């Protein structure tokens, strides 16, 4: 049931991305909409506001979770497209290993900044 579990995780990650990206968009880019509902989010993209969010564990968690789910969703989807266009067991094995390595490196690299900011 390995492929089924991976595919279900792919679908689940899509739903999680929609939620996390929704939070990101509303807080950072749709502050005018928030203002309409009486929520004050003055200059959410300013340096000070960003540093303030970086000092809160919940935001660090959201950023790292978004990065992890986006990486999984993107690489698993891309792997499926490549496997369909050049179907072979060998290609599948190579593509899977390359994407796992690149994904882990990108996740560590991307997660380093919010973790460093949180601990500073």
């Amino acid at each position, binding site marked *: 049931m390995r492929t089924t579990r991976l595919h*279900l995780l792919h679908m689940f990650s899509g739903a999680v991305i929609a939620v996390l990206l929704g939070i990101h968009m509303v807080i950072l880019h749709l502050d005018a909409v928030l203002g309409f509902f009486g929520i004050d989010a003055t200059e959410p993209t300013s340096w000070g506001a960003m540093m303030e969010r970086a000092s809160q564990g919940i935001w660090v968690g959201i950023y790292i979770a978004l990065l992890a789910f986006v990486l999984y969703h993107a690489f698993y989807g891309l792997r499926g497209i490549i496997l*369909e266009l050049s179907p072979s067991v060998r290609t599948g094995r190579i593509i899977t290993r390359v994407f796992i390595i690149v994904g882990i490196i990108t996740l560590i690299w991307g997660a380093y900044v919010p973790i460093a900011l949180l601990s500073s």
Partner: protein
Amino acid sequence: MTESSPKQVTFRVQRYDPEDGTSPHFEEFTIPSSRGTTVLDGLIYIKENLDSTLAFRTSCRMGICGSCGMLINNYPHLACHTQIEELHSDTLSIKPLPNQPIIKDLVVDLMPMFNVHKSIKPYIIRQDTELENPTAEFGQLPQELNTFLQFAYCIKCGICVSACPTSASDRLFLGPQALAQCYRYCADNRDDGHQERFHVVDTDHGVWHCHLAGACSEACPKGLDPALAIQLLKRQLASQALGLRKKQPPSSVVPPPTEIKPKIPFPEFTVKGDK
């Protein structure tokens, strides 16, 4: 009632013989067509009167055997099931089914499809010895039969595989025919072999590679819905992976009825023969 005079229809038939070394090309034949003439009738006319070297596969001529699948006006059809009149064209393009290797002219090699079909174990699998030493019939309610009945009408013509866009791009994809048959046996309450079949379809080129284009269901000449079967198979796999699948033992044998109702007697003949 007067019979309308036959009109002339041009068949543009793709010719290809791998032994010749020539690339596929088209040849035109003009055939007489009247109401009710099928594409297969036209091809038989060509073979009998115009070019006996034309190769195509046919058998039952009534949409049962699934031999005469071909691409007619760029859409996969059974030639015996397609009347020329309903295509509303005086020129028909006739090509072999795509996504299958060509043997000659309109004859394709269906062995790859049959091998995939075989791989999903299209037969009842049970752990007991009832199949080897049968004692009675397996119990099956009409509603249990209805869960898979339409998929049991598959004639293995290969039209769904030819229509499938995923089969066109991924030669390792199991294809709608095999996946629908996998569901047909997994949904059968007499069967206990879903684990063995799940092992085959739960792969990178298996059931999750279906894009749900629905072309298989649209093209199926028997009116089956392989796309639905694939979605139901996905549901079975997802339930199994998430541990939500209810464990149901396969149906047990049903003892033969002790009481047999008497047959309804034949009515009296109303027309008496001369004595």
